[in-house]
């Protein structure tokens, strides 16, 4: 493929027009990312393309990469070979329009290709007998519609691909191609070369994603909507005919016909669309409990059967419209609720999928094989590259390195590892390559221990009864009792005949049918959950919001929760010149320390033609950045904690040290929580000496260090026993049991897999503010829920006397029901106003 790259300027080229024209580009031979010999600079193209050239040209900027927009070495078009290759692919296929279409959101930059983990795709491929293969992948790096367009267009150019479709909502790519399973690697590499990360989905996760409950709910909603609309239309005709003197009165024959038509639509629709409620009510009754679905089901079934009886008798009133409209309204609430939480849960799953990585298992002949984490057997020898997560618990056989165990034990400083050291899954290898022999995966591993503790803690946690069900427990008997008393009062008290007495009693049930009551809580849930979702907070549990509102104590973990998940560079004693040089080298490495160094320096162009010595450092000529031994600084004073050294000819060696930094807004969030009247505690697995300064800086008096997972659970349970409702915020594997034991729990998205799965809430981003925002929203939501309940009960109190007195007609019931529902729904929108966002 011979392609030409258009060299127009060094300004942020993706914004320029000159790059657009399909495929008019040229590169040097062999995909070199160096500029050609004669870069003829042109003036930056203007947007309007008009004659007028503004005199105020852009100030000289640092060169930026034509693909990703990050700083590039001066005189270069690209920051790295990956970007050059991506640009070439895009231009080569004539898809240069991508760079303009991206401008939909100029703040975002195209993703930068990086050497990604390799995956064992074969286990996720579904090979069909007709010679086609299917594969589902999670995509990371999708930013806007242009990304979808680019991926699909690139796949469309592959002749073997039959379907390559991106689902932007769930961020998944579905690939169907003609050929063998081995072709998958090439197709995936094609997309990965553009800068997106692809991770295969396993079959079980895929089945869960099908979401059959959600679809069943929408189908029920459609049927209920159809029935409600048509029945109401007919009912209005009947009511108009009823209004004597306003129109010609409707004859009884016509009225009966219309009633029968209503029944024809309503009966099957109610039988179908009411199933979600009937099923849930039945399940509750079978366990001798009651929930909101019980009065709903009783109401709907009674109203329908009463209408049918009346219909057969040729009476004036039927209530089919009330029954169908009630179901329609309630199903809207159910569908929205299901969708809001399903979206949050799917996003949380996606985060986890993207984080996992395959394990490199050493075969007997010395070659390696990528295998899924679950497929590692005890006794396998695993290769752990620098910067990679250890995939299984085991014992180091060869190699020396330091390990970041912060996610596992809560210790913020790396621990050194050599032959014989026990390592745990989830720790990150910071130094050289390690060979680890996986140990028995039985009950002895730390993970298994934590999972056991989590199960135990979850079993002990008392079943939380949601507000709506608490209300239903008192509401249902009260309503049914009122109806009974009404009947008794009319039949025995007033001496009325049997049939009118029964009708009046049923009218009481219809008017008290808990439409508004049943919407009071879900409507608020939906609005609050969606609001939180937009700010990156994923509410996974249905009852989390209500449990959060009752919280009076917040317990934080330290490492990774109050502090940044990655170590940060200590700034003192580092001159900016050395930092820039070091950062330009570090920008080429994926090592965690190199990354934080590069991040600390801000926008620095990566140095070119550096050599990376795995596990040791990076060199560029005589300049070296890396470990103490790599830089030959062994004689220099030792310091605690991780370090990087920079040696340059003519300069003294410079040491970069790292420590954990508090999250930027930790102090602010803690004081915000205090202002809300919450008591804040700190419970860490790290050494007391490391916890004390953090506690002091944040002004947390109740703190404890060196707590094991068991002690953490005990501490949280002691708080619960003292009558506190605890929100536990933690990220480590060692926090998992404690998260399960707490009244409600939250994890940052960087948390260990186990913790994230256990937590009720997952929050994304570098800030801690979501915790305060979460509690604020939950409290507001609870307030609005209570108002809603009060509103709908108040409405019932007003309406019931009319029903008892026998004044309720179908149109009055329908109007009252819709009115109260609308009132409750409008009030629910106030739950959106929380926080200051």
């Amino acid at each position, binding site marked *: 493929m011979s392609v030409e790259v258009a060299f127009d300027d060094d300004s942020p080229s993706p914004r320029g027009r000159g790059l657009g024209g399909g495929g008019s580009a040229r590169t040097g031979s062999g995909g070199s990312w160096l500029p050609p010999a004669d870069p003829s600079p042109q003036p930056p193209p203007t947007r309007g393309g008009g004659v007028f050239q503004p005199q105020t040209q852009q100030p000289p900027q640092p060169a930026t990469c034509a693909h990703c927009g990050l700083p590039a070495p001066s005189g270069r078009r690209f920051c790295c070979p990956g970007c050059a290759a991506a640009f070439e692919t895009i231009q080569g296929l004539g898809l240069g329009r991508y760079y303009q279409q991206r401008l939909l959101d100029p703040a975002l930059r195209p993703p930068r290709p990086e050497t990604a983990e390799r995956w064992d795709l074969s286990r996720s491929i579904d090979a069909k007998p007709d010679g086609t293969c299917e594969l589902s992948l999670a995509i990371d790096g999708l930013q806007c*519609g242009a990304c*979808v367009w680019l991926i699909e267009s690139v796949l469309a150019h592959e002749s073997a691909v039959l379907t390559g479709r991106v689902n932007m909502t769930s961020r998944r790519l579905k690939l169907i191609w003609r050929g063998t399973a081995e072709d998958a690697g090439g197709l995936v590499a094609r997309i990965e070369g553009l800068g997106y990360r692809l991770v295969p989905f396993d079959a079980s996760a895929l089945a869960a994603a099908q979401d059959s409950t959600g679809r069943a709910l929408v189908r029920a909603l459609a049927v209920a909507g*159809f029935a409600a609309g048509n029945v109401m239309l007919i009912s209005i005709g009947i009511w108009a005919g009823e209004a004597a003197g306003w129109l010609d009165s409707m004859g009884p024959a016509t009225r009966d016909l219309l009633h029968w038509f209503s029944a024809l639509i309503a009966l099957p629709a109610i039988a179908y669309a009411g199933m979600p409620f009937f099923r849930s009510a039945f399940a509750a009754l079978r366990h001798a409990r009651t929930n909101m679905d019980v009065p709903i089901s009783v109401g709907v079934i009674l109203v329908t059967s009463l209408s049918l009886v009346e219909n057969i008798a040729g009476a004036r009133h039927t209530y089919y419209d009330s029954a169908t409209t009630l179901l329609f309204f309630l199903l809207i609430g159910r569908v929205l609720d299901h969708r809001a939480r399903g979206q949050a849960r799917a996003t949380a799953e996606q985060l986890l999928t993207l984080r996992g990585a395959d394990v490199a298992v050493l075969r007997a002949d010395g070659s390696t094989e990528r295998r899924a984490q679950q497929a590692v057997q005890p006794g396998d020898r695993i290769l752990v590259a620098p910067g990679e997560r250890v995939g299984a618990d085991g014992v180091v056989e060869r190699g020396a390195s330091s390990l970041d165990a912060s996610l596992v034990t809560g210790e913020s400083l790396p621990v050194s590892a050599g032959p014989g050291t026990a390592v745990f899954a989830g720790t990150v290898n910071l130094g050289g390559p390690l060979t680890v022999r996986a140990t028995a995966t039985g009950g002895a591993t730390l993970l298994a221990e934590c999972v056991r503790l989590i199960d135990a803690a979850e079993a002990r946690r008392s079943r939380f009864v949601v507000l709506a069900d608490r209300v239903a427990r008192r509401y249902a008997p009260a309503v049914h009792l009122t109806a009974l008393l009404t009947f008794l009062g009319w039949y025995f008290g007033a001496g009325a005949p049997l049939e009118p007495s029964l009708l009046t009693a049923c009218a009481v049930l219809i008017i008290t049918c808990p439409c508004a009551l049943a919407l009071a809580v879900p409507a608020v849930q939906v609005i609050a959950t969606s609001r939180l979702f937009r700010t990156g907070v994923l509410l996974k549990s249905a009852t989390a919001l209500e449990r959060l509102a009752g919280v009076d104590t917040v317990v934080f973990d330290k490492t990774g929760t109050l502090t940044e998940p990655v170590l940060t560079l200590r700034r003192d004693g580092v001159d900016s010149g050395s930092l820039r040089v070091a950062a330009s080298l570090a920008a080429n490495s994926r090592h965690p320390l190199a990354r934080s160094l590069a991040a600390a320096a801000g926008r620095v162009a990566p140095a070119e033609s550096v050599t990376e010595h795995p596990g040791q450092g990076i060199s560029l000529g005589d300049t070296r950045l890396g470990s103490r031994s790599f830089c030959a600084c062994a004689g220099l004073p030792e310091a605690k904690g991780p370090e990087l050294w920079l040696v340059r000819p003519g300069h003294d060696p410079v040491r970069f040290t790292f420590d954990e930094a508090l999250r930027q807004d930790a102090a602010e969030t803690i004081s915000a929580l205090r202002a809300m009247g919450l008591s804040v505690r700190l419970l860490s697995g790290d050494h007391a000496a490391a916890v004390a300064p953090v506690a002091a800086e944040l002004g947390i008096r109740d703190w404890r260090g060196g707590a094991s997972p068991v002690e953490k659970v005990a501490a949280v349970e002691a708080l619960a026993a003292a009558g506190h409702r605890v929100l536990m915020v933690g990220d480590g594997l060692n926090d998992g049991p404690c998260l399960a034991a707490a009244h409600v729990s939250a994890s940052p998205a960087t948390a260990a897999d186990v913790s994230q799965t256990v937590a009720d809430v997952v929050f994304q981003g570098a800030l801690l503010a979501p915790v305060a925002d979460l509690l604020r929203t939950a409290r507001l939501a609870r307030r609005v829920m209570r108002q809603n309940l009060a509103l709908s009960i108040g409405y019932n109190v007003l309406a019931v006397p009319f029903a008892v007195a026998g004044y309720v007609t179908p149109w009055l019931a329908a109007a009252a029901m819709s009115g109260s529902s609308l009132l409750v729904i409008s009030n629910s929108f106030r739950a959106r106003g929380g926080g200051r966002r």
Partner: protein
Amino acid sequence: MNVILYLLAASLVLGGGGLVFFLWSLRSGQYEDLEGSANRILFDHEDR
């Protein structure tokens, strides 16, 4: 008032047709990716 029979039948058929089409669109996955569909209309897709 016999016309009402035709009208009722017609409204049922039309409404039922709408319902069937909705259920079909649901089954064929048109509600799976609302965000993507909203973005897709902005781009030219080459037919193959």
